C-alpha cells in the first residue's frame, strides 16, 4: 500500500449559539491518502485480494492515530472513503465496509456499534462530511453529528482518501429529547 500523506484535523469548539461550551467539544479526524489498489485494472469483479491486502492495515494504522489526536475517550465515531475520479465508489466501500477495517477502531475505542460512513467520488480538494454516531448505541440522539473535512490536494484521480473520525462528546449545546420520549 502506498500512502502519500496522512492528514490530521482537530476541532475544538469553545462556543456555540453564542454560549460557552466548557469543557471544549473536541472532534478529530485522521485521513490517509493512498493509491487506489485497483487503479488501472479496469472492472475487477472480485475485490477480495485488494481488500485483504489493505483494509486491515488501514484500520490498524488510523485507529490509534485518531484517538491520540482526540486526546480523550471517544463517545462518537464515523468513517469515510473518498474515491478519486478514475475509481469506483465500490473501491472505497471495499476498503471501509468490512469488519477487517472497522474492528480495529471498535476495539481501540471500546465500541460496539457499526461505524456510520460517507463514501463518495470527487475531484481533488473535494469537501466531505463524515457522519458520527454514539460508539455503543447508535440511537443516542445527542451524539448524531458530522465533521467536514477537505484535503486540498487529494484524492488524485487514482487515489482514495480513507478517514476515521472521533468525537469526545455529543453535539455542543445538544438539547433534543431522547428517542425514547417519542416511543
Amino acid at each position, binding site marked *: 500500500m*502506498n*500512502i*502519500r*500523506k*496522512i*492528514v*490530521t*484535523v*482537530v*476541532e*475544538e*469548539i*469553545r*462556543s*456555540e449559539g453564542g454560549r*460557552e461550551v*466548557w469543557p*471544549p467539544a473536541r472532534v478529530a479526524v485522521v485521513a490517509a491518502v493512498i493509491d487506489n489498489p485497483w487503479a488501472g485494472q479496469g472492472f475487477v469483479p472480485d475485490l477480495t485480494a485488494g481488500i485483504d491486502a489493505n483494509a486491515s492495515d488501514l484500520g490498524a494504522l488510523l485507529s490509534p492515530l485518531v484517538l491520540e489526536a482526540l486526546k480523550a475517550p471517544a463517545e462518537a465515531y464515523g468513517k469515510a472513503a473518498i474515491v478519486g475520479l478514475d475509481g469506483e465508489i465500490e473501491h472505497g466501500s471495499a476498503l471501509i465496509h468490512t469488519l477487517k477495517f472497522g474492528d480495529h477502531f471498535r476495539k481501540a475505542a471500546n465500541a460496539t456499534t457499526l461505524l456510520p460512513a460517507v463514501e463518495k467520488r470527487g475531484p481533488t*480538494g473535494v*469537501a466531505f462530511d463524515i457522519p458520527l454516531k454514539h460508539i455503543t448505541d447508535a440511537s443516542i440522539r445527542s451524539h448524531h453529528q458530522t465533521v*467536514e473535512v*477537505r*484535503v*486540498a*490536494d487529494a484524492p488524485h484521480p487514482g487515489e482514495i482518501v480513507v478517514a476515521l473520525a472521533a468525537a469526545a462528546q455529543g453535539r455542543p449545546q445538544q438539547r433534543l429529547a431522547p428517542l425514547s420520549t417519542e416511543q
Partner: protein
Amino acid sequence: MQDHPWLRKLVLYREAVLTEAGLAPAIPAERASVAAVISNPWLGTGPREDLSPAVSELAPRLAKLVTDRLLQALGGVERIEAFGKAALVGSAGEIEHGGALIHTPYFGNLVREFLGGESIICFADARTDAGQPLVVPLWHKSHAATRSHYQTVDVRIPDAPRADEIVVVAAASTGPRPHPRIGDRTTDPVITSQTLEGVLS
C-alpha cells in the same frame, strides 16, 4: 472556565507527507496550521477607529493560543523550521482588522519568539465567506531566503469566518518541500536579461 470569551473554535490541520511523486522524501516534514475563529472586536466601527487598544489586548493572547497548539502538534520548537501566518476576515469587517491582529509586534514578535525564529513571518490575508480556502505561505524561520523551505499550507474552516468573525492562523513546517531541487542563492548563476539574451531573443 471559559478563558477566551471571544473565541468560537480552534482548528488544527496537520499533514505528514510519506511519499511524493512515488518516492519518500529524504527529509520527511510535517506541516500544520492552527486557526482561531474569533469575534471581530471592531465590528460596527468606522475606518477612523483606533485599532491599537484591542490589538494590544487581543493579539498577544491569540499568539500564545495558536503557537501553543502548533508546538504541541509538531513536537516542539526545535522541530519547527518554517513558519507563516494568515487572517481571514468576515464580510462585515475590514481587511485592516485582520492585519491589525497579525501584522503588529503584539502578534508577530510573539509568534517569532515562541517558534524560535528570526525571520520576518510571511503571510496571506483575505476577506472571505465562510468555508473559503486560503493558501498560507511558509518560509524558513531564521533564514527566509532558504529556497528549499518555500512551501504553503491550505487552510479552510467550513463554517468560518462568519460575517462578524476573523480567523487568525499560525502555520509551520518541520522541514523542506518533499523533493527540493531548485538550487539556492548560493548555487544560482548570475542571471540578468543580458546573460539570457539568447533565450529572450
